[in-house]
């Protein structure tokens, strides 16, 4: 799928020689620290950023120079880490814009007829919203939607085009506990035949969803294996609980200076984290 892909922004090398091949129907999790290049990898796969070097092949076709819409037409769909919806359209209109994307041929469109008289399109948007539990919000403008619902809609749009390969960029980032549970149910209900690549910081979410985990570190894949192997890997543990931890603290304290109460908070947080990690075993 990816052959020797590198990506640099100016002097900043974000991805270095990534080789990655994913079989049809596989579910692959991608973990890595902030800034490891996970989102950039998705941009390269979906065509929003051209790779500096290397080739991208989707469904057996070389697509390195294909536009994002061309790749979508082949059956690729993705979500975004920062929700990318249509804020001033209603929830239902959002889904209908998606349906009119790469799958528009499935609906008998008549340009001179109002959208609301297109029965099959309307039925499909309703079905999708019902499936994803968003039907009660169908007529709400998206900018008035709660964050959790926006994240669900984000995935609904990606699914609406009936993709063969789905890229999910941190579906649970920033969700509350309740929203998180809803999202996990949604993720668990994704059709089995779908090939899924999911970037996620919640390890328990990723481990219950995927059969293969990639660890991305400073633009390289440093580990690739089943969840059980990745979970017990010493290097990954150190990274995730060492560096990740330190990086987060540095950020929260505005650049590395730990003050006393922050440190308390942190130590406690880390204990929780360890616990959660161990429970995962």
């Amino acid at each position: 799928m990816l052959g020797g892909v590198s990506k640099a922004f100016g002097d900043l090398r974000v991805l270095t020689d990534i080789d990655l091949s994913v079989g049809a129907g596989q579910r692959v999790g991608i973990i890595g620290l902030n800034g490891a290049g996970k989102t950039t990898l998705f941009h390269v796969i979906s065509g929003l950023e051209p790779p500096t070097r290397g080739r991208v092949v989707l469904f057996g076709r070389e697509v390195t120079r294909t536009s994002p819409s061309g790749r979508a037409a082949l059956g690729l769909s993705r979500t975004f880490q920062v929700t990318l919806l249509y804020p001033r359209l209603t929830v239902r209109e959002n889904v209908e814009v998606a349906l009119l994307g790469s799958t528009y041929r499935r609906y008998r469109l008549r340009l001179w007829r109002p959208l609301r008289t297109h029965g099959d399109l309307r039925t499909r948007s309703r079905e999708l919203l019902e499936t994803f539990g968003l039907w009660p919000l169908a007529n709400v403008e998206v900018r008035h939607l709660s964050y959790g619902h926006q994240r669900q809609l984000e995935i609904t749009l990606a699914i609406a085009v009936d993709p063969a390969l789905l890229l999910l960029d941190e579906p649970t980032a920033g969700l509350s506990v309740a929203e998180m549970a809803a999202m996990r149910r949604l993720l668990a209900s994704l059709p089995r035949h779908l090939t899924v690549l999911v970037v996620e910081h919640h390890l328990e979410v990723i481990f219950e969803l995927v059969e293969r985990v990639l660890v991305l570190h400073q633009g390289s894949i440093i580990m690739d294996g089943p969840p059980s192997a990745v979970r017990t890997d010493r290097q990954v543990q150190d990274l995730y609980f060492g560096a990740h931890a330190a990086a987060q603290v540095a950020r929260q304290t505005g650049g590395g200076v730990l003050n006393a109460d922050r440190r308390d908070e942190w130590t406690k947080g880390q204990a929780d984290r360890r616990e959660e990690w161990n429970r995962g075993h």
Partner: protein
Amino acid sequence: MRADSAGSRPRAAALDPRAPTRIRAAALAGLAVLAAIVPATLPSYWLTIATLALIYAIMAMGLNLLMGYTGLDSLGQAAFFGLGSYGLAILLVKDGVGWWSAALAAVVLGTAGAAVLGLIAVRLRGLYFLLVTLAMGQVLWGADYRWGTFTGGANGLELGGGRPSPWFYSDANFYYFTLGIFAAVAALVSLVIASPFGLTLRGIREREVRCQTLGYRTYIHKYVAFILAGVAAAVAGILNAAYNGIASPSDLSIDQSFTAMLMVILGGAGTMAGPVVGAVVMTALKYELSTLWVDYWPIILGVIYVLATVYLPNGIVTGAAGLLSRAGAPKRAVEQEPAGEGGPAAGGARGARDRRGPGPQWTVSPRPHAGGRQQGLR
């Protein structure tokens, strides 16, 4: 924005795309009657204003497809307005073509112009799009002077009458003619807006990148919208030349483009009625004020622009609909819409929007670099 008390307030209903069809139809019929009795009830000075307002409304409705629905702000509509007016004038005067054929050919000329210029313009976005469209208008404006022997230069090109037949020389009749074309354009535009294509345009306006990753070749949609706006401007240019009996350099000037843009903004971009209201208000203002201070129109335009941006950022129509719905219904229900097959009204949809707080702390990964730089993509 939505008037949920539309049932009891026909004026709000006329402005509100979601009002029940019967009430909208009644409001439209009322407006049609009003428009029809203009020549009989208003003095000829106001008949002139009404005719010009309709002509400009045609251009503004087209531009609104581009600005309000697709999110592309064009400052080049004068180019197509001028292609229409000069196309008609040159064919009538220099080539002696019959009026209807000349008008048809001028529409084709405007369309072709939009098709060519659109190829370049729709590859751009935002400020670059604005500047390129501005440049297109300016190039044609310059060409008009450069080839003055052909186009009449600063004097413009007199049509020697310029209306299709003697019947049209009655100003009342020409008004009805314009009204008919206005109605046809309005019907077409509302058809486009309600169609699946109209929804995709709004999607592109809201998030073009998302549309691309969903499989849209967005430049094709933008290109079609660009051409439609160009055609409308050309039609307006033709009517304007026929009405005034002259194609003049001001047709091609930046003022013209700016006026069209201002009509859309002032009336309410992205609403069906907005550009019409904007055209009426601006045309009336132009004629009222320029009789007082002839040379100050560009300055007045600028002042209107500033005032509109500050006090009516969403336009008259949107502002009025908001006021009326607030007056009619104390708690404005965001979630109301008489959906086709009984879409449910949603409760409790708002509020939780900013709940990105640091939930269980470590699970949230705050993004220090999410702000600013690459926001559009992530």
